[in-house]
Structure formats: structure tokens, C-alpha cells
């Protein structure tokens, strides 16, 4: 019993480590990538020069680190932590302080349902590489995402600032609107793989279509994939759907936040980005599946076989999952520096009048196709 | 009664009225420097030249008497041309050092130049420099002879108003200058008035010099609290440049014209009492010597007064306003069934111009409202059997603490009263609250808020109302004028008066019930 608890705790730690690190690196990527994309130089200042004779040899090593701005996240962190813990006059102090906590908490909790590897056999135990094995998988994730709205609403209400309040209203209505599409698009996947359990869905994606094409969600549900990705992007409230915040122009729900509390909002935003990447990977891009990799090793469609040991297989799976997640994070960031922001009516129009009907049609078509295949 | 036409409008004036005064009846302002209604007519600045039809040349409006059938033009082309020429002449030797001149902003030379002159200089010669630029001629007065336009107002003031004859004009032509008489020192008790009447920056007040530019100041009508005369003043407040003069809020007093009280003058003694407004003020309440919030102090006093039942009393200094006196009376003598009396006002020197021996602003008001004077507070307390007493204002109270259970003092400055207090409540001075004073002649005049109560101080009338709340006799006055209305309702001499009807110049006691005579 205690060993089970320890294993679960260990898995949770691994997951946290992965998520927080990817999210933290985001803050660097966001600066440097945006700079390079926009023909700028970007963060290239944070760093230090060693004066002590014994440490001087480190200076040439520091140079590329400074040049690439790798210490910028550290500097950002120091700045955020060192700032005054301030709450607005006339606001509700407790709610104001708890809002970022709510937001970050629910952003993290969702990850417990994401599988980052297949079952690991070690010392006679079967460990499913997933923090919480829930047979309602993504419903749980959506529920947690839904609770994240409270962080936003509370931050808006407790700030005693009409701009923050309006930002919170925009954010909440945007999140609720796109949750509907998000849920509807996933139903296609559920119908294809016949389970709500994310681990089961990933396992289902290990099969091959026509003997050579991995049966990934993106291949069986291409429309669902695009809709899901778009709706999920809207859920993260990042450009081009960043109407709730719009730092420079329209003022958002965390206007009255500074220091660590603001840092928590920012971190939660990045965590949500990672969550979207992880969900997209899990539902549509095979999760931890690597093409043609089976429990015993590679079996290629042209007949060649490469045997890989169990630990090797698990390692390849976990790394494959991580690489996919990072690639999607990268794509999300690139989209941020590519597309302009939607207008609010366009956003609502897109969500309710275009994406929702299309996703409903997608369900109907998927059902028909499945019936047809079964009938044949 | 001559009837004349000024700028096309007819006006009928008394025999002997000058044109400048006749024009004033029609709200026509004729520019002038040397003319002052409180002084004799000199007629030397020539700024008030007007055209009188039929007269061979321009006439000075300040000295030409109105005659029947006169047709006067004050603002035609000829007048304007003459004014511009006079200004050019006056400015010939003026140093034009407005940047360093304290008069800048309230200088008639600047005003009229912008209005009537505004011409480029045609002067080829060097300006005639006077002997010294800035020179001290009295304890409070600086003289800059270069800026002087020799209107002689200050000379006439010392000759005619104070009869001290310190000043005179010496030398000839463009070397003429204002000079002190041999061995004299401009230190009479009204010396500050020469600064007020100087139309340019020749005479400046050493106390005000360089502290603040006059355009930063806001003027608030008020009453001088130096003595029982009740001179009308304007409190000049610096509201939005707090870095000036070490953070002082009130910059100066200026006398305000009121023919019934102080004409145009005020004494130096009163003029510099403004320093008391911010100096060494009580800014927080104390209970038994410990710092407390005003709420706590009020609670303590309220509890003590409650305990004393009707053995309570209030002693109000004659610096309190009519409103504060009325609240004290209504609460202690009225609602609580206790006793109320006023403290003897401090006495000092008097003279035959303005200064009175009674050095409190509202002795008459206290007489009218409370009636009873407690010449010796300790004896009064003993006689009345008072067990808990509230003192409003400053007083000599030695030994009071031993006689009663509780002494609460509503004071503005630490002094002999606060030494005897169990509870000290920080109250407001006259510049921090609305209200009214009744001067010794029985004239009720308003004071207005110039600055908010300093630090943690609270308006005295508000403190009295809070006490009323705690004693179960809440007053429902929202503002000071409500209190005055109640006062006017209850006390016959004040009947019919209100803050509104007092206006800028006040009204005598009893005038509210009689039809006012012809207002001139």
C-alpha cells in the first residue's frame, strides 16, 4: 500500500518536473523566439561577469549564455519574487490573493490524467506511467479546466477595477464558449477509440491503418484535430485569442496583479499551453506512441524488425511523448507571433456559429462512417 | 445733486463726488495708481485721465468733481492713447525685474501694461538707477526704490492714517525716491499696510518675500482673530505647491475692505497671527497623557460625562465660533441639564485706530450665547458642583484637575489647558472650519474653510456633535450653517440671520429682524 502511494507521488513529481520545466523554458522561448522571428536580437543582457581570478575562465562560457539570454527567466523570476506584495485599495484582499492560486492549481491538476508512457514493468510491478488512472480521463481534465475559470473571475471581481472586471467577464465567456466546441470535437475521438480513458485512447492509436499508417487521431479525425487545436488555443487565451488580457491595449483581468501573484498567472498561462500541447499529442498524435514501435521492438510495415528491450521501449515512448509536446508548444508559440488578434464578435462568431456546428457535424459524420465500417 | 453722463450712461451723484467714484457707481473702472479711497487725493500718477467734453484738456478723474451736465468719456481712443503714454513714462526708469519681484502677478503696473500699454520701448538712454536696489526700511518692510512709481500712497498712509510720518519723497525729477525720515524706522503697528497699498513691487513684506508666487495662492475670505475688532481678511493659501516655505499651508493674511469694521487696514500684530495656524499644533488625541485615536478619546470623555449625570459643565474660550458656543450650550446647559460658561478673554493693549484690548475674536458672541462668564474656572466648577468638565480652547486652569473627576480639553495648541486635561481632543482653528464670529461692536461675520484640519485634528464643532452622540443627544446638523440656523432660531439677537445673509461683510446683531435701512 505505501509502496503504491510512493509510486504515485513519484509519478506526480516527474509530471510536475516536466510541466514546470517546459513552462519555465517557455518564458525564455517566448522572448528569444519572438525576437528572432521579428528580426530583433531579443534578450541578450541577463548575466554576470566573473572578476575573481579563479573563476575568470568561466567568462567565455558565460558569453553564449548571455548572448542567448538563457539567464533571462532567472532574472524575471528574481524580479517577480522581489516585487512588493500589493493588493488594490478597496479590493477583496483574500480573494485577490487566492485567485492566482486557484488558477494555477487547476491548471496543474489536469495533468494527473495525462499518460506519458505505457505500463512499466519493474521489480514485478506494473506501473502505468500516468499519475491518476481515471476511466473518465479527459472529462476530468475539462472539469479542471472549467474550474480554472474561477481564478480568472475572482481576480476580476476582487481587483476593484472595472478594466480587470471586464477582462474577467471576457475571459470567462470565452472559456465557457470554447469548452463546448472542445468537448464536442473530442467526442469523435471517443467514438473511434471507444473509451474516455486517455491511456486506452493512446493504446488504440498504436494500431496501423491499412498496415502502414499509424492510427493516430489526426489521421482518423483530421477535422476534429484542427477544431480541437483551435478551440484549445482559445482556451489558453493566447494570441490570436488573447482578448481577455491583451497586455498592451485592452487591459485584462490581472491588471491589478504584480510580483509573485502575477508570476503565478503567467506560469499558469504557460502551464495551460503545455496542457494544450499534451492533450493534442495524447488525443490526436499518438501520445507516447512511436510509429511501428511495439512492446518487443520495432516492427516496420516492410517486414524489418529491430528488437528493443523493455526499458528501451519505455524510454523511447516517454521521449517520443516529450518531443511531441515540445513541438506543439513550439507551434503554439509560433502561432502567437504570426496571427493577429481576433475581434470579440469574431471570436464569439467563430466559436458558436462556425466551430460548434462543424464539430457537431463531425460527430454525425464519424458516427455514420463507423456504422458503415461495422456494417461492411 | 449733479447729474452727469459717463460713457453714454447717466448717473446722479452727491455734490462733491469725484469722477472716479461716480464711474464706480456705474461699474466703470478707471485705471489709477495714486488714488486710494482711504487716503487723501494726490493726483500725481495721471493714470486716471479722462476726457470731459468742453474741457480744454484731459482731466484726472480722481480729483475732478462731478458737475451737472458733465459728459465724460473714460475709454475712447484719446483716453487709451493717453494711458499708453503715461504708462510709457512711468516705465521709463522701471527696472522690469518682474521675475524677481514678489508683486508680479498682483502688480497694477503689469496689469495696466497688458491692458493699456503693451508697446515696445522707445528708450535710447540708460535707465536712471536709484541708490540702492533692495533696502530694509522697517522690521517687516523692504523698499526697492527702482520699482517705485512715486504714487506717494505709502507717504500719505503714514501721514494720514497712522500719523507717524516715517516716509517722505526726497530728491528731484527722475532721482526722486521714497526715503525714511531722519532716524525713523517704519515700525508702526500698521506698517504692513503700506505693502498692501503699494500698487507696484516697491514695498514688499519681508515675511512673504520669495516664499511663494502670488499666482499659486488661493484667497479665502475670513476674519482676523487677533482682537475683538474682527478685521475682514483674506487668507492666502498655497494649496498645490506644498514644497514652498517648508510646507506652510497659509502664506499670508491680506486685509479686505469693510467700511463698517476695518476700512482697508489691519494691524501687523493680527497680520502675522497666521503663523499660529500651523505652528506647534495638536494633531492627535491623548487620554491620560497617552496617544489615542479621537474615537477612543471621545469614548473616554463620553463615559466620564455620562457618569457625572447632570454635574457636567462646559467652559468655552472666546476663540470659539458662534456655532461651537451654541453646540456647547445646547448640549451641556440644554440637553444634559448641566452648566455652561465662557472663559475670560485675554486682555492687551489698545489703540485708537483698530486694535482693541480684548484679544479674542468672539467675546461678544460668547456673551450673547452663553451669557455667563467664568472669571475663575476653578471657582466656577466648585460653585456649580461640576464633576466632569469640557474645556473648549485655551485657558488658565491650574488646580482644576484636583476639583473634578474628568477634564476634557478641545484645544488647538498645547498650553495651560492641555496640562490640566485627562483627555485632549485636537480641534480646529478658524482657518479650518466654517463658522461665524461676533465682534465687540456686535457685528456677526463669517469665517470659511481655507485649509483642512491639520494632521489628526477634527473640526471642533464636529467633536462637540460626536460628544452629543455619545451622550444620547445626537444633533442632526450636517453642516455649520445648519447649526447657525438653529442658533438664529433660538437666540433673539441672531434671529433672522443666516450664513447666507451674512455675506462677505457680515451683519450687526439684531439686524435680521429689522428692515435694513437704505443700503448704500
Amino acid at each position: 500500500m505505501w509502496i503504491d502511494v510512493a509510486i504515485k507521488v513519484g509519478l506526480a513529481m516527474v509530471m510536475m518536473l516536466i510541466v514546470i520545466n517546459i513552462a519555465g523554458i517557455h518564458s525564455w522561448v517566448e522572448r528569444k523566439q519572438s525576437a528572432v522571428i521579428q528580426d530583433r536580437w531579443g534578450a541578450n543582457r541577463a548575466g554576470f561577469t566573473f572578476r575573481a581570478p579563479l573563476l575568470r575562465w568561466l567568462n567565455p562560457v558565460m558569453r553564449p549564455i548571455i548572448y542567448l539570454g538563457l539567464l533571462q527567466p532567472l532574472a524575471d523570476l528574481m524580479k517577480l519574487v522581489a516585487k512588493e506584495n500589493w493588493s488594490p485599495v478597496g479590493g477583496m484582499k483574500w480573494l485577490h490573493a487566492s485567485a492566482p492560486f486557484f488558477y494555477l492549481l487547476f491548471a496543474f491538476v489536469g495533468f494527473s490524467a495525462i499518460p506519458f508512457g505505457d505500463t512499466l514493468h519493474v521489480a514485478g510491478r506494473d506501473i502505468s506511467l500516468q499519475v491518476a488512472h481515471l476511466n473518465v480521463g479527459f472529462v476530468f481534465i475539462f472539469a479542471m479546466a472549467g474550474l480554472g475559470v474561477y481564478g480568472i473571475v475572482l481576480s476580476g471581481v476582487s481587483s476593484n477595477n472595472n478594466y480587470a472586471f471586464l477582462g474577467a467577464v471576457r475571459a470567462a465567456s470565452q472559456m465557457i464558449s470554447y469548452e463546448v466546441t472542445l468537448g464536442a470535437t473530442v467526442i469523435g475521438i471517443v467514438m473511434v477509440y471507444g473509451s474516455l480513458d486517455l491511456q486506452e485512447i493512446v493504446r488504440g492509436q498504436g494500431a496501423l491503418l491499412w498496415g502502414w499508417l499509424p492510427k493516430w487521431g489526426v489521421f482518423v479525425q483530421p477535422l476534429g484535430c484542427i477544431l480541437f487545436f483551435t478551440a484549445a488555443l482559445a482556451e489558453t487565451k493566447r494570441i490570436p485569442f488573447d482578448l481577455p488580457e491583451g497586455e498592451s491595449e485592452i487591459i485584462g483581468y490581472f491588471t491589478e496583479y504584480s510580483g509573485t501573484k502575477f508570476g503565478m498567472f503567467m506560469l499558469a498561462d504557460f502551464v495551460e499551453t503545455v496542457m494544450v500541447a499534451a492533450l493534442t499529442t495524447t488525443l490526436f498524435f499518438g501520445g507516447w506512441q512511436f510509429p511501428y514501435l511495439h512492446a518487443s521492438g520495432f516492427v516496420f510495415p516492410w517486414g524489418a524488425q529491430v528488437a528493443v528491450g523493455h526499458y528501451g521501449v519505455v524510454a523511447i515512448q516517454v521521449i517520443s511523448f516529450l518531443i511531441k509536446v515540445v513541438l506543439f508548444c513550439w507551434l503554439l508559440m509560433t502561432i502567437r507571433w504570426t496571427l493577429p488578434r481576433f475581434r470579440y464578435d469574431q471570436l464569439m462568431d467563430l466559436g458558436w456559429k462556425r466551430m460548434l456546428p462543424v464539430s457537431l457535424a463531425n460527430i454525425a459524420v464519424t458516427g455514420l462512417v463507423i456504422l458503415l465500417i461495422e456494417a461492411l | 445733486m449733479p447729474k452727469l453722463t459717463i460713457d453714454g450712461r447717466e448717473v446722479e451723484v452727491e455734490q462733491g463726488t469725484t469722477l472716479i467714484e461716480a464711474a464706480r457707481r456705474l461699474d466703470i473702472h478707471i485705471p489709477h495708481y495714486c488714488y486710494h479711497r482711504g487716503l487723501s487725493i494726490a493726483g500725481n500718477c495721471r493714470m486716471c485721465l479722462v476726457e470731459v467734453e468742453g474741457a480744454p484738456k484731459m482731466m484726472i478723474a480722481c480729483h475732478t468733481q462731478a458737475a451737472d451736465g458733465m459728459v465724460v468719456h473714460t475709454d475712447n481712443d484719446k483716453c487709451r492713447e493717453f494711458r499708453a503714454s503715461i504708462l510709457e513714462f512711468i516705465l521709463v526708469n522701471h527696472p522690469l525685474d518682474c521675475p524677481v519681484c514678489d508683486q508680479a502677478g498682483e502688480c497694477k503696473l503689469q496689469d495696466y501694461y497688458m491692458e493699456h500699454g503693451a508697446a515696445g520701448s522707445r528708450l535710447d538712454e540708460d535707465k536712471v538707477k536709484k541708490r540702492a536696489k533692495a533696502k530694509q526700511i522697517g522690521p517687516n518692510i523692504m523698499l526697492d526704490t527702482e520699482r517705485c512709481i512715486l504714487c506717494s500712497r505709502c507717504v500719505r498712509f503714514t501721514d494720514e492714517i497712522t500719523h507717524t510720518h516715517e516716509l517722505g519723497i526726497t530728491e528731484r525729477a527722475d532721482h526722486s525716491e521714497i526715503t525714511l525720515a531722519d532716524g525713523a524706522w517704519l515700525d508702526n503697528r500698521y506698517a504692513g499696510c503700506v505693502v498692501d497699498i503699494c500698487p507696484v513691487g516697491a514695498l514688499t513684506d519681508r515675511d512673504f518675500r520669495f516664499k511663494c508666487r502670488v499666482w499659486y495662492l488661493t484667497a479665502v475670505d475670513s476674519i482676523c482673530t487677533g482682537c475683538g475688532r474682527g478685521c475682514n481678511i483674506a487668507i492666502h493659501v498655497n494649496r498645490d505647491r506644498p514644497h514652498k516655505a517648508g510646507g506652510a499651508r497659509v502664506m499670508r493674511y491680506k486685509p479686505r475692505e469693510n467700511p463698517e469694521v476695518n476700512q482697508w487696514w489691519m494691524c501687523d500684530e493680527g497680520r502675522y497671527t497666521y503663523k499660529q495656524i500651523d505652528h506647534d499644533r495638536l494633531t492627535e488625541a491623548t487620554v491620560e497623557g497617552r496617544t489615542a485615536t479621537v474615537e477612543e478619546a471621545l469614548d473616554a470623555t463620553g463615559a466620564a460625562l455620562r457618569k457625572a449625570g447632570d454635574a457636567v459643565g462646559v467652559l468655552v474660550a472666546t476663540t470659539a465660533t458662534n456655532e461651537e458656543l451654541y453646540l456647547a450650550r445646547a448640549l451641556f446647559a440644554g440637553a444634559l441639564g448641566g452648566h455652561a460658561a465662557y472663559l475670560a478673554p485675554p486682555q492687551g493693549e489698545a489703540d485708537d485706530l483698530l486694535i482693541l484690548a480684548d484679544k479674542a475674536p468672539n467675546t461678544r458672541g460668547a456673551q450673547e450665547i452663553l451669557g455667563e462668564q467664568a472669571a475663575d474656572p476653578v471657582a466656577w466648577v466648585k460653585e456649580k458642583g461640576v464633576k466632569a468638565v469640557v474645556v473648549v480652547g485655551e485657558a488658565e486652569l491650574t488646580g482644576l484637575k484636583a476639583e473634578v473627576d474628568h477634564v476634557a480639553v478641545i484645544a488647538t495648541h498645547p498650553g495651560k489647558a492641555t496640562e490640566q486635561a485627562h483627555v485632549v481632543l485636537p480641534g480646529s482653528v478658524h482657518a479650518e472650519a466654517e463658522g461665524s464670529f461676533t465682534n465687540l461692536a456686535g457685528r456677526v461675520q463669517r469665517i470659511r474653510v481655507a485649509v483642512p484640519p491639520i494632521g489628526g485634528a477634527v473640526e471642533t464643532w464636529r467633536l462637540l456633535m460626536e460628544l452629543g452622540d455619545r451622550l444620547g443627544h445626537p444633533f442632526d446638523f450636517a453642516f455649520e450653517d445648519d447649526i447657525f440656523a438653529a442658533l438664529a432660531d433660538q437666540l433673539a439677537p441672531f434671529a433672522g440671520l443666516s450664513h447666507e445673509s451674512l455675506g462677505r461683510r457680515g451683519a450687526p446683531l439684531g439686524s435680521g429682524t429689522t428692515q435694513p435701512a437704505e443700503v448704500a
Partner: protein
Amino acid sequence: MAEHLFFLYFAVAALICGVAMVSRSNLLHAALWMLAFFVHMAGIFLLLNAEFIAALQVMVYAGAILVLYLFVIMLLDVRELAKVRQRHASATVASLIAGVMGAIMVVVVARGTFNPIHGAATAALLASQGNVESVAIALFTTYLLPFEVASLILLVAMVGAIMLAKRRL
């Protein structure tokens, strides 16, 4: 043992949240207590092996419906409302009824005559069928008519709301 402890926690916490919810005069606080209440209810569902219901409870009630309540509350002036001393005549009657019902419940539980009715969905069935499937089977076979009626009612409500909000379509 652990299950009992968890149940005790969820039950007591849900009760406390419920009482707090109805007793707060600040609507915003009441809504947040309601949120806590929903989460604890979901916890009880989890203990009953009803994971799907638990997730739906959080997603639908807490994630959507309560957020809409919050919208309304936010658009009202919460501070102003909190100042109003709300005292209705019906409050006395309501608390009386609640008190009587509470007393009945206490008596029933104390006498030990309160036996849970075992439904069709046993833990074994859930393990073999899966959570969602069990719900779906119940919903689309046994209770099909009530389900369809409920959806019709919802449709009517939706149309009514749109008609009320948008007079000119």
C-alpha cells in the same frame, strides 16, 4: 477505513459548505461556498465509484452553471447588496420547515431504520462495464422517456429565454 474517513470528511465539509452558502449575505462568498460544496459532492460521487458523475458534477455545475451565476452576481453591485439587511417573513417559515425536516432525519438515523437501497449499478458491474457505459445504458434504455422529456423542457426553456432577451429577432 480510509474510505470511511474520506466519506466523513466529504460529508461534514459538504454540510459546512452548504450551511455557509445559505447563510452568507455576500453573494460572491455564497457562490464560492457553493463551489466548495459542489467539489465535495463530487468527492462523495467518487467514493461511490461514480467517476463520470463526479467529473460531470464539477464540469457542468461548478464549471458552467455556477460561473453563469457568478456572471450575474458580478454584474450586480455585490458590496451594495451585502449592506442590505435581508429579512423576509418567509425566512421564519422556511427555517421552521428545515428544522422539522432536519429533526426527522436525525431521528431516522438515530433509530437505525435508515437502510440504503442497493441499485443496479454495483461496483462489479461498473468495473466490467465502465462508468460511462453504465450511465449511458440507464439513460438511453430504462430512462429514455424522462431523458427526452427533460431535453424537451430544456429546449423550451432555451427558446423562452431567447424570446425574452431578444424581442426582435
